[in-house]
């Protein structure tokens, strides 16, 4: 019985090692924010973080996730207030919303490494995530807004520490 470290908690699951992580998260752990879209790593709806990297949970076997730190949309922030989530609301990004957990998780992995991405870097990082409602321009705007917020917060923190 694999033991998973997910959203900061240790959880035991009953699944064969070759089971896609996606279905374990959704069915056994009943965290349904991570979505099934294509089952082939082509759409990004199932994106989660494993050790901080954005991965497609439909292509990740549960056995390979054991001992690693898994984060889903439910665990991205304590109160749904990650700068990206706030920006998603301010820019009114979602239409149907089905792809947006994956979009946010994909974007979060970018901003954690690159706090000041160019538009081209955003496009290159996000191009594997399909949005069938085609909210792409709002996704871009929200990522830029969140990046800016995070830089401002980080600068403010630095200044406070400095004084």
């Amino acid at each position, binding site marked *: 019985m694999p033991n998973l470290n997910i959203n900061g908690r240790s959880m035991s699951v009953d*699944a*064969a090692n070759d*089971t*896609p992580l996606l*279905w374990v998260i*959704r*069915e*056994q752990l*009943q*965290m*349904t*924010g*991570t*979505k*099934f*879209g*294509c*089952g*082939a790593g*082509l*759409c990004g*709806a199932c994106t989660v973080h494993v050790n901080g990297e954005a991965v497609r949970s439909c292509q990740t076997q549960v056995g390979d996730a054991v001992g690693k730190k898994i984060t*889903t*949309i*439910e665990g*991205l922030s304590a109160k*749904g207030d990650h700068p990206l*989530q706030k920006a*998603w*609301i301010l820019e*009114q*990004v*979602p*239409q*149907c*919303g*089905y*792809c*947006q*957990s994956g979009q*946010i998780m994909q974007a979060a992995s970018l901003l954690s490494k690159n706090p000041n991405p160019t538009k081209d870097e955003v*496009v*290159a990082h*996000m*191009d594997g*995530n*399909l*949005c*069938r*409602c*085609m*909210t*792409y*321009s*709002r*996704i*871009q705007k929200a990522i830029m807004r969140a990046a800016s917020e995070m830089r401002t917060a980080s600068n403010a923190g630095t200044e406070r520490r400095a004084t």
Partner: protein
Amino acid sequence: MNTHVKTPPTDLSRRSFLVGSAATGLVLGYAAVPGIDQALAAPSGFEPSVWYSIAPDGLVTVTCGKADMGQHIASTMAQIVAEELGASWKDMRVQLASNDPKFNDPVLGAQITGGSWSTMMNFDAMSRAGAAGRTALTEAAAASMGVPAGELVVRNSTVSHPKSKKSMSFADIVKSGKITKTFTPDELKAIKLKTPDQYTMVGVSVPQLDIPPKTNGAAKYGIDVMLPGMVYGKVVTPPVRFGATVKSVDDAAAKKVPGFIKAITLDDKTGSTSGWVVAVANTYANARKAADALKISYDNGPNAKLSSQSLIDEAKRLQKLDDSGQFFVKDGDTAAAFGTAAKVLEAEYTTSINIHAPLEPMNATAEFKGDILHIYSGNQFATRSGAIAAGAAGIDPKFVVMHQMWLGGGFGRRLDADMMVPAVQAAKAVGKPVKVIYSRENDMTMDYSRPLTFQKVKAGLDGDGKLIALNHDVVSAWPTQRWGIPDFLSPSVDKKGPLDAFTVNGADFFYSVPNHNVRAIKNEMAHNATPSGQLRSVAPGWTFWAVESMIDELAHAAGQDPAQYRIALLDGKGKNDGGAQRLRSTLLAAMGMAGYGTSKLPKGEGMGVACVSSQERATASWTACVAHVAVSASGEVKVKKLTVATDVGMQVHPDNIRAQVEGAALWGLSLAMYEKATLKDGGIEQTNFDTYTPLRMSQTPEVAVNVIANGDKPTGVGEPAVTVIAPALANAIFNACGARIRSLPITAEAVKANMKA
């Protein structure tokens, strides 16, 4: 005009409208009271319905009878109610209706979401429901305060009396239990609604109520339903789209899969599926393994040799026959006019099969509980889908409760009910609740797709280049006829029986053409081999492709600017009065925004225009596009910018309109350049997003949207902008490089092959 659109709208005569009050809260709706939870748990037709309720804490919960697939229609309904009710936006909540007929659309008389109809057809009913609530609250507050009701002001969920400075919140009034006012249908009709200049909420981009739960994983879609004791089903679909039968199922290997329960061959008397098997197991992963392990032999049926080429060959054969099809438009005498024409042009336009591919694959969860069949699924047509579920179960539709969920994309796909059949029959066979989820491969190959279409257009010009005659033949499968609901068909002009106007809408345009025929021809072969559906924008997605391309070809043949040529045709004479002028103004707006004709573009670049009256003549939004493209020597098309103007009458939520129009325009681009499905050996060849390739972020151009709203009734915005893009692009490509493209999707090869040397 299609018979399903009944004007004037909102016949309330069959319903009584009651405003009741109890300690549990104030409930407003057609007929009597109880709680939503009961309504959801009860068989259809048993519980009365409600549009909204106000709880003792003052929260106003609106029940939305429309499917919310990302158009934020639930939030829009709440906004319209809140405007007349006088509620504060922070107090508004929404929930999704069951299939109780009391939640039927007040104009359409069914629960169906499509056609970009929802706002236009519910605005009046929701406004009156809100106003009735305000009246009742005001009268109760007046009694409590001992002041005349006429002196009270309702704002921000509070009823106040400025003279005495007394005030009561909605919560206070509901808690007082003093609301007794009821409304007869006549009283409801007589309610004086606000005039647009009095609006404080309609026209404001309030935060959409469904967005926060769509940023933290909390929103529940059909695929997210979890029921106690539930097991999972994975369908196995045959190699052909339709017509197969299962000869045998060998489950020996599947039995070795842990958690496997049973494989069920569907017995589908509803005709929604053919040759399907569903593998049921304790988890979806195991159901997939079991499904893969099944050895099934099929009789692939009568369509097993058909290809896209067969369908187009058949369409061309049918079009050539004089007695094919039925007339949708027959004005003047085209044959005589062609005899006098100075110039006659003919052209053929085609579109490929297209797949909806909403990102949430089709799914449904079925549970038998006592006499009641519960279905959990995001669906656009609960009235029909409930009946299909009943048909699959062999029970009366009144015993089916449809639990509506948020839709992970609809685009017309979820008007259909095929997913109900495996869920219902699996649940029945295993005696447990079953959630059936299609794989992406099932979803793509079994789509009720946009049909392959073939159109032949013949046009006659007089000596001045004026369009005097047009014959337009449209050959396709008939998606809406497939539903078998007579009200959704339209009489033919030549009285040859009803036709499917959802294959020709748009061809009855607002240009003045004295001699004009439109013939709707059913491609029976395509209809049987590729049962088709309503894909975002439906017929105008192909009719305007032909019309707006041909108008451009005619303008060039006449040596005139294509935009000015259109403006001249939109003279507003006779039956086109009103619509033509609005479309003309919209086209001018798009031209102005894009700078059309104001500067010389670099070599290899071009701008093209198109303007449309989607969706139907009776329900049109007026939409125009200027597309700006750059074409390379190898035929590669880069879309530099799409400028879209649309006249929507009235804006309920300006930001949402922009979001919808932009999404629709990008859908138009995706269909025009990136999406193509093909039939081979009776089956759809594309199975996932590697071969069926909707637009991605890197392919997204700038889209400039200009919304025109002059205070007329609100029109729809979810679909119309889809239809204007493909012709605008093709017209731009022609202006850029001289290549006239008549087949969708547009490919670099076709552009290069048609370029002028």
